[in-house]
């Protein structure tokens, strides 16, 4: 191996960062809804959001292909509105990573928000705050540890997404080939050294992220 191809790792990093940004916003909103609002079908919504955690990645990839393909309503609308095609593009890899990572964000953030004593929120209401201000200035900061932990888990999960990515974004070297897919490719082609290098880097990154997440959530009372 003379020249190491860093593209898959850099692509994975980009995909994971963008995916995490989406997942944090959508995940915290969903988590707040699930933790603080009562509505019909609340637990059904939670189950739906959690599904990617237990479904085979191929099933997820299948759904995404059907939902986001060029000839589907959603996929067509997205392409018309933003000009972004999601099938066999790196943006597709972002979607696959985000859907896979969302459950980890929602689960962690829901627990963190439910843990915030509702009296703090009520106190803010009596002090003249709107619901948005209550969320921004009370709920969010008090749940911030759990939310940051959720974001780190989502990032780690996004970094390693494989199955749905392969189906939606494909395996186009230099365009959609993420690190996880490149490992598969390299072992198939007998480039074992390259595969090992990526395996070690991904494992190390995942380990560090999980370790930091644990430190964040288990280091006792903060306030």
């Amino acid at each position, binding site marked *: 191996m003379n020249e190491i191809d860093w593209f898959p790792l850099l692509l994975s990093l980009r995909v994971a960062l963008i995916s995490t940004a989406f997942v944090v916003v959508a995940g915290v909103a969903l988590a707040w809804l699930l*933790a*603080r609002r*009562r509505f019909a079908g609340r637990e059904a919504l939670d189950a739906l959001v959690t599904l990617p955690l237990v479904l085979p990645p191929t099933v997820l990839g299948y759904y995404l292909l059907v939902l986001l393909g060029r000839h589907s309503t959603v996929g067509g609308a997205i392409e018309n509105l933003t000009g972004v095609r999601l099938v066999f593009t790196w943006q597709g890899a972002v979607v696959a990573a985000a859907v896979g990572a969302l459950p980890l964000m929602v689960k962690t953030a829901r627990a963190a928000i*439910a843990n915030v*004593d*509702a*009296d*703090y929120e*009520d*106190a*803010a*209401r*009596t*002090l*003249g*705050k*709107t619901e948005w201000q209550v969320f921004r*200035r*009370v709920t969010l*900061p*008090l749940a911030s540890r759990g939310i940051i932990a959720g974001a780190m888990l989502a990032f780690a999960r996004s970094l390693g997404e494989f199955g749905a990515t392969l189906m939606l974004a494909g395996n186009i070297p230099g365009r959609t080939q993420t690190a996880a897919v490149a490992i598969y490719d390299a072992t198939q082609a007998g480039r074992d050294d390259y595969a090992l290098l990526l395996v070690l880097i991904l494992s190390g990154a995942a380990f560090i992220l999980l370790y930091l997440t644990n430190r964040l959530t288990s280091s006792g*009372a903060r*306030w």
Partner: protein
Amino acid sequence: MLSVKIRKRLGGQANGARLSSNGTMGGARDEFVLDVEFNVAAGVTILFGASGSGKSTTLKSIAGLVRPDAGRIAIAERVLFDPASGIDAPVRERNVGYVFQNLALLPHLTALANIEFAIDNLPRRERRQRALELMKSFAVEHVAARRPRDISGGEAQRIALARALARNPQMLLLDEPLSALDERTKLAIIDDLKSLNRALTLPVIYVTHSRQEAVTLGERVIIYERGRVVAEGAPRELIGEVFGESVGKHPPRSGQAGV
């Protein structure tokens, strides 16, 4: 003058209508209907009764944190709640000073920032000045930079009071705010409250299940029993001079309370 008329079916939880975050409805306690009507003038009115008799739910209904099934709540000429005419003012517009049983000082803010939080509609300098004045009037300016976890119970209590008063509320609702304090601190704060209230001339509702607090603090007492008002009047006549004793799980019988 605050006028209160509330009807609400209580699901049997001690502190009323808020559903707990994990969705448990308990069912350990029996259901009853909170059905009360009373007026509160300026000065301290004690809401006295066993835990679970509907006192906290009454306060939360007045503040707008809990929605009664029916009734009417008005302060002076302003109607806060009247479902018959479609009025249900949001909490933030009711201008109520509220001190929670656990005080609910925001743990991520310093004592000073907790008070400033209440008045952040003011420009920064004015806000700071008003918050410091309030702290000074409660003799707690020395803990301004500390977080709630680093201050004593009595100090935290005073910060909570200062915060509740910062917006010049038109009434003050106190939900067993002294229950966690030792006797000496309690008496000191009761004195503060009394002198404060004379200066403020606000309607103050003070919820307690402690006879001692009821007798020392209030000019008037309303006695609750299972969601009903069973007696109203001067605390010493109704409750007597039984100090240091709380009503336990069993509420006093209406006969003993004496009307």
